[in-house]
């Protein structure tokens, strides 16, 4: 923005193609340190998961535009189902190298969807201690999904649970469902 700066800003650089790869071992160790850092600063499993999710949110916020520009020709999704498929397929594939396994709609609640992943990359090297059975560090991923959906115009709460591997429970706000029905009617 300011020309007085001697170095070029990050916005002046061309967008990378995103084909770079780094070692999984390195990432796993970094993630483990992140979990420890968050754990040292929280008093309960819930708090720890919230912190991980907040960090994921930070990541997701930055991915949303990047991936729509790069993978989808700058066109955002406006239909709910397409947006969910974007998360399940495109986002997961680019980010983690494989699509999430399943996308399901809750039978009893139209606001709720499940994205199911058998082996979450971040959980690959994590063994959950017995006394913290409910802890799922993929809360980090849940944060990514929540940011992508919410910032993409589909406000939702996303949480990670142990069910068929890891299940991300996506609960949309009512207005999202109402609006989506409105689109159908047109």
């Amino acid at each position: 923005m300011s020309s007085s700066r001697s170095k070029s800003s990050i916005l002046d650089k061309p967008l990378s193609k995103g084909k770079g790869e780094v070692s999984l071992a390195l990432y796993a160790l970094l993630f483990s340190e992140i979990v420890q850092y968050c754990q040292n600063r929280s008093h309960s499993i819930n708090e720890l998961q919230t912190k991980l999710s907040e960090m994921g949110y930070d990541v997701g916020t930055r991915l949303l535009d990047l991936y729509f520009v790069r993978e989808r020709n700058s066109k955002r999704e406006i239909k709910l189902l397409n947006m969910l498929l974007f998360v399940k397929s495109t986002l997961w594939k680019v980010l983690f190298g494989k699509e999430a396994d399943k996308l399901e709609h809750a039978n009893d609640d139209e606001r709720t969807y499940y994205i199911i992943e058998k082996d979450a990359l971040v959980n690959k090297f994590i063994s959950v201690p017995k006394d913290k059975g409910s802890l799922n560090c993929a809360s980090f991923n849940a944060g990514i999904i929540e940011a992508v959906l919410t910032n993409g115009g589909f406000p939702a709460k996303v949480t990670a649970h142990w069910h068929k591997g890891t299940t991300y429970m996506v609960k949309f706000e009512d207005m999202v469902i109402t609006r989506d029905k409105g689109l159908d009617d047109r």
Partner: protein
Amino acid sequence: MSRQTSRLDAKKVNSELLTLTYGALVSQMLKEIDNPEDVNKQLERIGYNMGVRLIEDFLARTPSTRCLEMRETADKIQQAFRLYLNMQPVVTSWSSAGDEFSLVWDQCPLSEWVEMPNNGLKYCALIPGAIRGALQMVQLDVQCWFVQDLLKGDPITELRVKYIKRLEDAVPAGED
């Protein structure tokens, strides 16, 4: 484990995931810790912890034997950068005694998309920490510090590595 139908090599992850995850960690730390100097220290510590464990992976993956002089060690460190961060720093500026050198690079997956606050933060403090940790596990005590930093407006990033001493094998506490 079941066979993977993965676009990426199973042992690799997207570098942007690393970039953003590390960025999220650093910005979270800056929010929670008042003094940037403490953030630097903690990042170094995190790097150290990673290095301590990463060296085993490195030894398992590469046909490495014991290095007899720092020049060999420098080569190994360079190799580790390629293996783990997919980047290729240049080893240069040797001291005449051969105990001190620089690693120089102009691109690093950790520091992509970073805009620095003006508060003395050493964004990449993870890297010197990791080098120190890894070398300590092979009985080398070194000191690492940044001489130049791309993120602070320098044309390149220069990391200086200095040999301090050989560590003697010590019996782990409680096992005598």
